């Protein structure tokens, strides 16, 4: 029998597509986009279209397993009861031994962004004060910057970009990472809108823009400030500034005294005349929209960069404009109840903050180092859910050390990931075709329900089901040891997740109405249209007391990014590829064989390396084998590897990554972000043969 079900793609992605699956007698046949959605419009990106292969992949783990020795691959299938028993007994023993539940650590993030996946946090809260990974590896600095400037972190509806006469895509590559924005941009171009793309490299988006402006990595903030100075010099400032902003005189004075356009040109790599032309066009065109990407702020000065761009938007009067503004992301629709066991995540730019005040909070980006440093009591058990830190985190040497020291490691996942290789117990989880869930987007305004279309594959269980069962086992062994529910209905739990505020935003009388179809929240299409801001002053704050309290300059200011050390002179950038999202690769079982390093041909020549030559990039932390590919558009001080997962036998790219953190992040997400674009390497010739590499990730 044919049946259709609605789903939401749960990836950490701008588009958060609405899907409809077709099943025949309980087996998935196909997935397509849900045409009821005005942003994703019934179309899917290539990643979602290989979902069925992923659900039924032979490499998917279908049973709980126990590993005799970590990293040995010596797995044995066990029953759920055995797994739960071992987990619960270990938790209770550690609690007894240390007289505390703090030795238990949870590290979970965005493997699946569904609200019911917060069950893992709620489970740990039910056990007692525990050690938690907090913050975000992604967008923390930018979120703080926007929180400082606007008071809240929100963006216009992505459809609003259609009204812009000028679109600046700044450090964002929607062609590969938010593809549903492309038809909106193309349509605008056909109606005469000018599109300018600022990036460190010629992306697929940049190649389709009217102009591509190549900026030296980490200097975008200075470029924005220099353009702000041009606006001031050429009387292109919004005359209304005194009415809705705070501190603009101070800011103009800063620009006047500290910023020199010619000097900025030298540092940013963008010629002074170009800076002036761009500033004039931006100042004279209304509406003009800036979309600031996440890569921009993955530097040690990332928060300041975003503040400078926000300030530029304000100076030109584009904030609050229909089709204008500085768009970055939002969290307005993430009003979930937190499963009753975590602090609701309202106003927190992080779905997984949900911690108790008594928890021990460790920055997710420095988790290994921080966990190793915990002494009273030490961290003894780690549960990884929706995370693959051994592939995606910094400080892998510290992670390795931590994994070797811990007494007990549980990994719940779909596949035997690089991190799962460290597990003592592996728990198989369900995909979004096998469980109920509730999803919001951080880019568009839609919220929707995910229905199960098929029975769980093998013995896999949802995070919520796992949390119930762990709690049940804990209470069986020691009554009262966990306050998280021990059973329930996924669907009912989901309905309770719709907070009153979310119901209001979605204009719902009763939560059940959400079950019918995805809904668009009732938010103004253009943010800050009234120019009433959520800052303490109620104005756009060029000068912010909040920033000062957090230890930053009151004004958006330029501080340089890190400089490469002499022994590692090349900056390594690792943008997303269109076929993969971090270590979540699509389709499964098609991991590219090795990394390709894109370099300027002249740079390669100076190392005596030909195209296709095997080589190695290295720094003081490690080395990774690469195959060279030439790209004329890459400058000679930058090299690029498009991020994708690596085979377990090969060393992964992140061995090169140190946990430099961004300047900002603590205010809104709880911890600074990861400054991963501040990674430096040297290029080395490699003698001997490297296995043949597949053509493209």
């Amino acid at each position, binding site marked *: 029998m044919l049946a259709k079900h609605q789903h939401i793609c749960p990836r950490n992605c701008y588009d958060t597509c609405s899907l409809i699956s077709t099943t025949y007698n309980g087996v998935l*046949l*196909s*997935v*397509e986009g849900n045409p009821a959605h005005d942003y994703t419009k019934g*179309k*899917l*990106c*290539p*990643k979602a*279209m*290989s979902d*069925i*292969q992923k659900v039924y992949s032979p490499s998917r783990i279908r049973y709980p397993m126990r590993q005799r020795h970590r990293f040995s691959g010596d797995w044995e299938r066990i029953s759920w009861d055995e797994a739960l028993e071992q987990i619960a007994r270990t938790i209770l023993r550690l609690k007894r031994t240390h007289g505390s539940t703090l030795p238990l650590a949870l590290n979970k993030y965005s493997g699946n962004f569904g609200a019911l996946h917060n069950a893992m946090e709620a489970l740990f809260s039910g056990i007692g004060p525990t050690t938690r990974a907090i913050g975000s590896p992604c967008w923390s600095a930018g979120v703080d910057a926007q929180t400082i400037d606007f008071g809240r972190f929100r963006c216009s509806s992505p459809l609003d970009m259609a009204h812009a006469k000028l679109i600046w895509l700044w450090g964002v590559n929607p*062609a*590969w990472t938010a*593809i*549903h924005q*492309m*038809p909106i941009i*193309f349509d605008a171009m056909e109606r005469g809108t000018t599109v300018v793309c600022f990036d460190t490299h*010629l*992306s*697929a*988006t*940049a*190649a*389709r*823009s*009217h*102009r*591509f*402006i*190549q*900026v*030296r990595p980490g200097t975008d903030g200075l470029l924005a400030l220099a353009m702000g100075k041009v606006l001031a010099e050429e009387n292109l400032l919004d005359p209304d500034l005194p009415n809705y902003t705070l501190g603009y005189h101070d800011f103009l004075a800063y620009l006047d005294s500290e910023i020199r356009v010619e000097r900025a040109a030298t540092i940013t*790599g*963008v*010629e002074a005349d*170009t800076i002036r032309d761009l500033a004039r066009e931006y100042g004279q065109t209304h509406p003009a929209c800036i979309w600031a990407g996440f890569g921009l702020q993955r530097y040690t000065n990332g928060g300041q960069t975003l503040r400078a761009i926000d300030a530029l938007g304000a100076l030109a009067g584009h904030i609050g404009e229909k089709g204008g503004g500085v768009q970055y992301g939002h969290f307005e629709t993430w009003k979930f109840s937190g499963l009753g066991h975590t602090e609701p995540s309202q106003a927190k730019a992080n779905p997984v903050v949900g911690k108790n005040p008594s928890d021990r909070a460790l920055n997710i980006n420095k988790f290994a180092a921080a966990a190793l440093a915990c002494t009273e009591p030490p961290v003894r058990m780690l549960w990884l859910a929706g995370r693959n830190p051994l592939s995606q985190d910094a400080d892998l040497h510290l992670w390795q050390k931590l994994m070797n020291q811990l007494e007990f490691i549980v990994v719940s996942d779909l596949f035997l990931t690089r991190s799962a290789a460290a597990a003592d117990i592996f728990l198989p989880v369900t995909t979004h075709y096998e469980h109920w869930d509730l999803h919001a987007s951080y880019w568009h305004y839609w919220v929707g329900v995910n229905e199960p279309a098929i029975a769980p594959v093998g013995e896999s269980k949802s995070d919520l089901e796992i949390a119930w069962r762990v709690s049940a086992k804990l209470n069986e062994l020691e009554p009262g040891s966990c306050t998280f529910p021990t059973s329930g209905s996924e669907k009912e739990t989901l309905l309770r997740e719709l907070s009153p505020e979310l119901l209001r935003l979605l204009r719902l009388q009763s939560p059940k109405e959400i079950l019918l179809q995805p809904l668009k929240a009732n938010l103004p299409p253009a943010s800050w249209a009234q120019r009433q801001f959520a800052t303490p002053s109620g104005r756009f704050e060029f000068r912010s007391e909040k920033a000062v309290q957090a230890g930053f300059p009151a004004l958006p200011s330029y501080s340089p990014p890190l400089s490469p050390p002499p022994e590692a002179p090349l900056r390594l950038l690792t943008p997303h590829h*269109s*076929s993969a999202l971090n270590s979540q690769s*699509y*389709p499964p*079982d*098609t991991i590219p064989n090795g990394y390709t390093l894109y370099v300027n041909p002249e740079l390669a020549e100076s190392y005596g390396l030909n195209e296709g030559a095997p080589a190695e990039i290295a720094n003081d932390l490690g080395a990774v084998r690469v195959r060279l590919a030439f*790209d*004329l*558009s890459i*400058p*000679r001080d930058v090299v690029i590897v498009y991020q994708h997962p690596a085979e377990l036998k090969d060393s992964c790219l992140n061995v090169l990554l140190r946990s430099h953190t961004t300047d900002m992040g603590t205010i809104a997400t709880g911890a600074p972000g990861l400054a991963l674009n501040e990674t430096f390497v040297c290029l080395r010739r490699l003698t001997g043969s490297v296995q043949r590499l597949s053509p493209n990730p």
Partner: protein
Amino acid sequence: MSKQLGFLHSSEKCVGCRGCEMACKNEYQTDAAPRWRQVFQLHEERYSLPTRMFFSIACNHCANPQCLKVCPVGAYTKRDDGIVVHNRDRCIGCRLCTMACPYDRPQFNHAKGKVEKCNLCYQRLDQGEKPACVAACIPGALELVEITAELDQKLGVLKTLPGLPTPALTNPSIRFIGPKQGKQIRRD
């Protein structure tokens, strides 16, 4: 033959996401190896500036299909609307069509011992739907069109792109809108 259906591909709008490839795989749940549709990146040395331009190729349902000509079992037929249909039930896996097609679009599936290719979703077309690849293309780069003299006279419509075999071989039913280049202000 009353008409000739084909594809119109805009390299200006195609961002190389391979959604069309995956939509095809999603529609037919095909094995990983044969790629009925494939996205290629244009060689950049053929342009004055790096282009990041792509084109997407499936069976071109040629006016002069070499596959149909060489096939010893008559597995290929050309419909009234110009679609070159490959009947897998008749195929004996001699692979001659894979040697004859300059676009490498009939591909041999080693696991099944037969050749496979795009049949332009004729069963969807017959029900008034678009081919899966066209329906899935988010930026609207891929269209189903009727190949006509008027189409070829339109400004900007190209019969081939650098890197493609000369259309003289098979008279493929695909047209292109070539890449436009924006201004690139690059640093050294």
